[in-house]
């Protein structure tokens, strides 16, 4: 189930809110656990079993780690943490990377008697395996207490708002909230605001710019122009940003409606003045997860420069491949590794002295270029696309398609550019400060109406000839 659907908005969500608030506090975690499983199992009911298995295994591991620590048996506790990490990575590797690995082995040795399994990827597996790993590690480090209530723990593992696309929540951040969260009307209303911002980002902006990238991507290279290719990747990056950050906002908003407080996941990445800053503003929860559980344990930057660069390399290779089981994502991650090494080496100091405009252009230029490899599977196609962006394939600078797309999508693009900066949020805050707070529910209603129109239209499916 996805948030930006009629089913979620008008069936699932009213049911969840109704049941949740009708029950006394002590039953809410149990109810949430069941409701989460329905949400998760909607598309692939069979994968509920993985979810339950994951819950039970991490639940017992957490307790085993804590009990051994209490007995002073650090070695054994370490063993159980390793076992938990092993189990989570095994789950992730099996479902997400097995076919990729097999495919590559077969490419080298085609005669081996192995073949890809073709299993559908359980939704959200990249997110929840990371969350549950953080749990046992936090317990081992003493940053969190093991959760003894299996329903409270289960509702953490399966929590529907952030289950399928993050933000990736560290257990220690929600530890207390699981058992002692406070729901209130203020919090709920704030949740509605955040959710609506996310819904509008996803249903109105991301979904509408998506077709521009799709149409440019589907065009033969021979019929492209240089500007079309730039427009295409701009459309892709904007779609990805509004889709992903919109989804995170919806998750945070839904969390608040249920009394949770999650971390922000995006902070206007396109206003960054360096790649280093970009990654502090883009998918923050993933970056902070890798920093805390991979980069710093490897030694971070408190070591030799060579070791530091190696650590950056490892973090970005894994970040890349985390985004998808194919080579282009690895390349995408490594491009960032190289850029970040340059910035750490000398570039960052120069950028800080350079005029802001130059730093912005530098950042956007490399962000757009690197995302070509995110957007396009297959190195050859990615390189060809990038070459075209610099006119290497003898493409014209401009063509009719480009002019048409600018005409058709122009107004939307302007909205997207504005939406990618803090302007909207700042204006909204001003409205609030100036005692125009009545505008908040009005804007919320308008957003709901427009989004609903787009959601209904997405399922609109007229036939030329009557179908039975």
């Amino acid at each position, binding site marked *: 189930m996805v948030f930006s*659907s*009629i*089913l979620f*908005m*008008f*069936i699932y*969500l*009213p*049911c969840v*809110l109704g049941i949740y608030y009708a029950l006394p506090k002590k039953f809410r975690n149990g109810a949430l656990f069941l409701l989460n499983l329905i949400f998760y199992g*909607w*598309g*692939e*009911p*069979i994968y509920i079993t993985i979810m339950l298995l994951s819950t039970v295994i991490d639940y017992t591991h957490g307790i085993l780690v804590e009990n051994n620590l209490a007995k002073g048996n650090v070695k054994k506790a370490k063993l159980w943490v390793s076992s938990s990490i092993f189990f989570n990575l095994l789950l992730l590797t099996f479902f997400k990377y097995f076919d990729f690995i097999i495919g590559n082995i077969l490419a080298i040795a085609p005669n081996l008697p192995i073949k890809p399994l073709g299993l559908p990827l359980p939704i959200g597996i990249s997110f929840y395996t990371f969350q549950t790993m953080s749990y046992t590690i936090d317990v081992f480090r003493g940053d969190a207490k093991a959760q003894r209530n299996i329903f409270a723990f289960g509702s953490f593992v399966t929590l529907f708002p952030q289950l399928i696309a993050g933000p990736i929540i560290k257990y220690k951040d929600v530890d207390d909230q699981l058992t002692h969260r406070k729901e209130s*009307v*203020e919090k*709920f*209303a*704030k949740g*509605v*605001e955040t*959710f*609506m911002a996310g819904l509008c980002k996803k249903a109105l902006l991301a979904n509408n710019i998506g077709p521009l990238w799709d149409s440019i991507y589907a065009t033969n290279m021979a019929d492209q122009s240089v500007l079309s290719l730039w427009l295409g990747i701009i459309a892709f990056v904007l779609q990805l940003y509004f889709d992903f950050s919109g989804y995170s906002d919806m998750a945070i908003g839904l969390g608040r409606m249920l009394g949770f407080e999650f971390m922000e996941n995006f902070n206007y990445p396109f206003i960054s003045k360096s790649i280093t800053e970009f990654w502090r503003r883009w998918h923050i929860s993933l970056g902070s997860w890798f920093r805390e559980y991979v980069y710093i344990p490897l030694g971070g930057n408190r070591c030799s420069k060579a070791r530091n660069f190696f650590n950056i390399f490892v973090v970005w290779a894994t970040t890349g491949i985390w985004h998808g089981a194919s080579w282009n994502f690895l390349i995408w991650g490594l491009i960032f590794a190289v850029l970040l090494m340059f910035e750490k080496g000398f570039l960052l100091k120069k950028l800080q002295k350079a005029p802001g405009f130059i730093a912005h252009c530098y950042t956007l230029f490399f962000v757009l270029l690197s995302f070509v490899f995110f957007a396009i599977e297959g190195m050859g196609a990615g390189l060809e696309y990038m070459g075209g962006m610099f006119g290497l394939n003898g493409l014209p600078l401009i063509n*009719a*398609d480009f*002019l*048409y797309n600018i*005409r*058709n*999508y*122009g*107004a*939307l693009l302007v*909205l997207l550019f504005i939406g990618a900066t803090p302007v909207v949020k700042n204006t909204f805050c001003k409205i609030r400060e100036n005692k125009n*707070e*009545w505008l*908040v*529910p009005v804007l*919320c*209603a308008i957003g*709901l*109406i*427009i989004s*609903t*129109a*787009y959601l*209904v*239209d997405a*399922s*609109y*499916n*007229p*036939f*030329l*000839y*009557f*179908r*039975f």
Partner: protein
Amino acid sequence: MNKYSKITTFTFVGFIAVFFLLLIIMPKSEFSEMENRNLAQMPKFTFERLFNGKFTAEFEEYVTDQFAFRDTWVGMKYFFEKALLKTENNGIYFGKDGYLMTKFVKPDDSRLDINYGVVRKLSDSLDIPVRFSLIPMASYVHADKLPGNANPYNQQILLDRASQMEEYFDLSQALLAHKDEYIYYRTDHHWTSDGAYYAYEKICQEYGMTPHDRVLRKEYPEFFGTLYSNAGARMVEPDTVTTFMVPELSVKDENGNDIPLYDESFADKKDKYSVFFGGNPPLVVLDNAEIEDGEKLLLIKDSYSNSLAPYLTHNFDEIHVWDLRANKTSISEYVSANGITQVLVLYSTENFASDTNIMFMSK
């Protein structure tokens, strides 16, 4: 407590709760005229269907299909797109002079190979003449009405490829010669009866026949066609479907039952183009009572020919109107069993480039 927090909460929860309740209490619609299809109904629940994912998928369809005021929401989205200065919605161009036009996408090459090839195959397998032509879509004839710089797939490529075939004769020039007239509907993907008439004149010329003048029979105004539906358009000028007088005819379906040539039951429905034959029956046999021992034409066609066939009845003894989408029986057997003397394969460019049923022609 801040009162606006309460109002915001109430607005949001109220909105989703109202539509949740409406879904439960509103009577369910069976059929959508706008979408020309049956709407999903509450799926059957069994544990087996639940675990294989069928129930959940169908339930989601049911919820979206039965969402309250569905068509109104779709119309609202159209206006929002207009407000965003878009030049298309749901793959339909907003052309000039109130014309909505299909965005012709690049066809699949292997489909083209199959469909062109099968016309040749049919022609080789029969020992009577097989003729073939393509009807361009409005965006070809009315290219000047497309939004600025719009660059749909060039239908000339399809016409040029067809013109390599000895069976082919051209209709596009006959239509282009009248491009300033009302020869395509503004809100529907079909040609108007005028467009069909110019094609009729050209076809008569090809068969060495004399086209008949036409006498208006009846007009069906307020026609909002498929492009109107597809674009989710609102507040556009409607079209008028016109029908013309025919000679004394018997009109029979595939079972030999009499059916109306002009089905008046569609006069008050949205889909007024279905006045012709009441849609697309698998087979319609039109027998001109005034002509004996004349040419017997097998017309293999899509829905464009539904408004053309009535004109042809003036000139042919019999016309067997064959729709491959609903009729996949053997054409060669039918030709010999019914004494067919001429075959005409006539498709719109878009259907010819995409229809997967055309390959059954040579069966």
